[in-house]
């Protein structure tokens, strides 16, 4: 490799780590990093030397809900709403809607503190239910129900497809088993949802703001 390109590598890596590289250049560079070990070494050099610049920032304790959400997203804890208490809900969609209504009508506050706004059922090509999703005021309560293909090195990611045809918006990672509670960001407008979609992504979710893996399933959010 000639001197000039090595120089270029130095500069690109430094600009990437410092953060002055923005937009599509940043995304392109992230892809280059996967292919060029020398670039990764350069990036590691800057990361190791510059991170202590952040010593000027005083540590600040995050709210306890951050850890709670992390535990929920990773499936370490069962969410407050016990979705699995309705295993018999799996089945025909019409009966699901009916039964959820019955539960809502007969529940006390101690059982369902926040009402269910909408539900979605994600099914495979054989119409077997894989995930049951309830939209509440601030969360999606998701339960993995059916035979979900266990892919240890990949995650399933849930997306909202806006009705205006703009790019999908990530709603979080779906559990491969058990239940999780996905917080609904206040910036997401759920009134104009065309559909939900599930894609298969690298562990931790899509590195981009849009799906990078195959879209496996789509479904509707049904208003109760």
């Amino acid at each position: 490799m000639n001197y000039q390109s090595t120089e270029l590598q130095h500069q690109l890596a430094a600009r990437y780590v410092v953060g002055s590289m923005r937009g599509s250049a940043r995304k392109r560079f992230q892809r280059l990093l996967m292919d060029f070990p020398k670039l990764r070494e350069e990036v590691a050099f800057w990361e190791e030397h510059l991170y202590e610049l952040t010593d000027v920032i005083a540590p600040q304790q995050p709210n306890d809900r951050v850890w709670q959400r992390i535990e929920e997203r990773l499936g370490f804890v069962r969410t407050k709403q016990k979705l699995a208490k309705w295993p018999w809900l799996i089945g025909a969609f019409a009966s699901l809607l009916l039964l959820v209504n019955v539960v809502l009508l007969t529940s006390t506050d101690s059982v369902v503190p926040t009402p269910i706004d909408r539900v979605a059922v994600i099914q495979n090509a054989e119409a077997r239910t894989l995930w049951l999703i309830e939209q509440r005021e601030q969360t999606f309560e998701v339960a993995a129900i059916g035979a979900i293909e266990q892919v240890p090195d990949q995650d399933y990611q849930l997306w909202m497809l806006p009705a205006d045809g703009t790019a999908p918006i990530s709603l979080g990672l779906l559990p491969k088993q058990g239940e999780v509670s996905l917080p609904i960001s206040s910036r997401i407008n759920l009134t104009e949802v065309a559909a939900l979609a599930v894609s298969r992504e690298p562990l931790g979710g899509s590195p981009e703001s849009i799906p990078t893996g195959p879209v496996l399933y789509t479904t509707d959010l049904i208003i109760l």
Partner: protein
Amino acid sequence: MTTPKGLERDLHYIALGDTAAFRRLYEATSAKLYSVSLTIVRRTDWAEETLQDAFIKVWHSAGDYSVTKGSVMSWLISIVRYRSIDLLRKRANQELSSTDFDDLPAPEVLDASLDKLTQSRQLQVCMDELQPTTRQCIQLAFVFGLSHQEVSEHLSEALGSVKSWIRRGLDSLKRCLQR
């Protein structure tokens, strides 16, 4: 206070699926990482989202960490900084408002804050060798996540000058750090 070795050990355990080690790592580092993100994204909800995403990544990628690549804190801070910068890029209203600029430290405060770099004498020496304005540009970009354009506005300097100072400053810094 968890030692660097303790963090390395916990990361090793996390790679094996140890949730107690994961909790220890969170308790030892989350305040630092949250403040790093908050300084860049400047909104508590965004910083909380970044911290969540970063720890989800840590849980899944702990096995990718290698001591040869640097310290655990350097690895964690990099994850949080990049997530924060990516989040700013994705949000439509990523441009800083005039109120945001008011919240940023004045150049002289930035310079004085470098004295807090007690851990890395070498970094402090090398930063000291830079011109004051260059030093401030690099700090504003690295610590506060400002783009070239935003640094230029904050310091009331021409965009071209800011770009060139940062580029040349990083070149000098690299030569100094390798000495």
